[in-house]
């Protein structure tokens, strides 16, 4: 490349796998590599950051009780808050995302993913729960006003087999989803620039005269 390389885009990979090693982590790593490759083919340098929720389980329980993320969890929340794009991968527990995964989403600033491209993915023992992506993951991120890419990636145990059909189908879905995410990344200004354009109420509060006027219709 002869043109100056633009700053790398930060893609945060959130994984809620519990076992060691976990198929959720495995899928997250596959997706991460695919996003880097898809970014490279579009001239977008990708910098990966992994958030492993298993390591934050205790902090998450504390945050539910105290109302604030402490220690390393705060760093994880800040990491997601500064992401250019997010890859979110959860195991399916009892017909939905896992409680650990949802607990993490619950401690995020509800504004932190507005307009952020998100790739949703899930793992489970069977293919029967694959619509979890559509009835749980997608609405969750839609609520947060994230931009969820059309292809969600679901990997059941059988998808990890080496057979021609199953294995290659998973590869295709991973590449397609990563490509969709990279397309969005390539077309968006960097998160830092977008966030800089939003008004921080601590920096620029609504002037009191406006507060009073909207509420009582009275002039000061």
């Amino acid at each position, binding site marked *: 490349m002869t043109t100056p390389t633009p700053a790398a885009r930060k893609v945060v990979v959130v994984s809620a796998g519990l076992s060691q090693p976990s198929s959720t982590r495995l899928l997250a790593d596959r997706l991460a590599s695919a996003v880097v490759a898809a970014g490279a083919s579009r001239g977008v340098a990708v910098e990966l950051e992994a958030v492993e929720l298993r390591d934050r389980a205790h902090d998450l*329980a*504390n945050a*539910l*009780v*105290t*109302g*604030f993320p*402490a*220690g390393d969890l705060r760093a994880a929340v800040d990491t997601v808050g500064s992401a250019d794009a997010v890859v979110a991968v959860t195991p399916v527990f009892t017909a939905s995302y896992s409680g650990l995964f949802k607990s993490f989403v619950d401690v995020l600033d509800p504004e932190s993913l507005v307009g952020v491209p998100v790739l949703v993915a899930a793992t489970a023992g069977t293919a029967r729960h694959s619509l979890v992506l559509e009835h749980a993951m997608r609405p969750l991120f839609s609520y947060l006003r994230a931009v969820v890419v059309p292809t969600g990636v679901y990997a059941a145990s059988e998808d990890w087999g080496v057979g021609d059909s199953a294995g290659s189908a998973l590869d295709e879905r991973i590449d397609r989803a990563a490509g969709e995410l990279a397309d969005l990344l390539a077309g968006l200004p960097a998160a830092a620039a977008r966030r800089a354009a939003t008004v921080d*109420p*601590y*920096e620029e*509060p*609504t*002037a*009191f005269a406006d*507060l*009073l006027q*909207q*509420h*009582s*219709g*009275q002039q*000061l």
Partner: protein
Amino acid sequence: MQFGIFSVGDVTRDPTNDRTPTEAERIKAMVTIAFKAEEVGLDVFATGEHHNPPFVPSSPTTMLGFIAARTERLILSTATTLITTNDPVKIAEDYAMLQHLADGRVDLMMGRGNTAPVYPWFGQDIRNGIPLAIENYHLLHRLWREDVVDWEGRLRTPLQSFTSTPRPLDGVPPFVWHGSIRSPEIAEQAAYYGDGFFANNIFWPKEHFQRLIELYRRRYEHYGHGSADQAIVGLGGQVFMRARSQDAVREFRPYFDVAPVYGHGPSLEEFTAETPLTVGSPQQVIDRYAGMREHFGDYQRQLFLVDHAGLPLKTVLEQLDILGEEVVPVLRKELAAGRPAHVPEAPTHASMKAARNAAAADAPGEGSEAATDGTESGDTAADEVRVEVVTR
């Protein structure tokens, strides 16, 4: 610098003996704690206001009136007065009455209240929390400063030719703090009026409150009440002390572990690292709180929560002895050292009355004299109203 205590007024089981005080015991314990605060040389007692179990203080002026009758020096305050669900007219009347009975030893801290069902119980809606706080306080502010008020707002029935009685003692309304844990709008409100801002920082890390207080200070200056470092800031805190720090930790941990709000969550060590909770020797408490101004600037009022987590009355009284004898005298000295001369004390009835008189004698309607001692100030529309009234 004022030091005091604030009480939530919760009825909480003592986890070490499984005993839950009755409401009667808790109410009497709260007033006993207030008397003790005066006895050990603290400046302020502030009661919470709640309208649901397990809390007892639903009627703050009844309690504070009783305490006023049996104390001489203690400033009686609230933490907080619900500006959202109380009628501002009734707040104006109740606290002016208390002010007369307590010879001016009264101020208030406005708060919104975060218990959703309390709003409909009083005919309100929590989604209107900020509008209620803004509009109700604006009316309250006028009721204390204008003898006859015509009012029409969005959220309360209109008033025509209404006079709130009794009028504030000496024509000087009680000083008001605005308490908030998260809302920039409330910091803006406190700054606009030149009122105090109390950051109730006891449950969250300091970084959040630094932003809120910085905003309040900056806007206080913007509205012409003085420089940012002259803004009137209050902070919360919670402590548990024994002569030896390991004794404090051993005694307090069973209370901490199951306490309402943070119990069954982080460890005592994690929570003390993240919040102002300090469990240890008096010296550890002194060191921690002497350092607060490094995070928040020189401030005017420090309130401690001591009767929490189901601690028995006897223990709370011992805590107050330690606070009054060993901690606060040292903190007063340490915080006075290096405090710039232009940083004001928290306004009191006496200081506001003196400032008002000085301003009236000097230049009616201008208030420049008052601004120099930082307790009153001059050039917002709201202050002009006040000056007109008091110099009438």
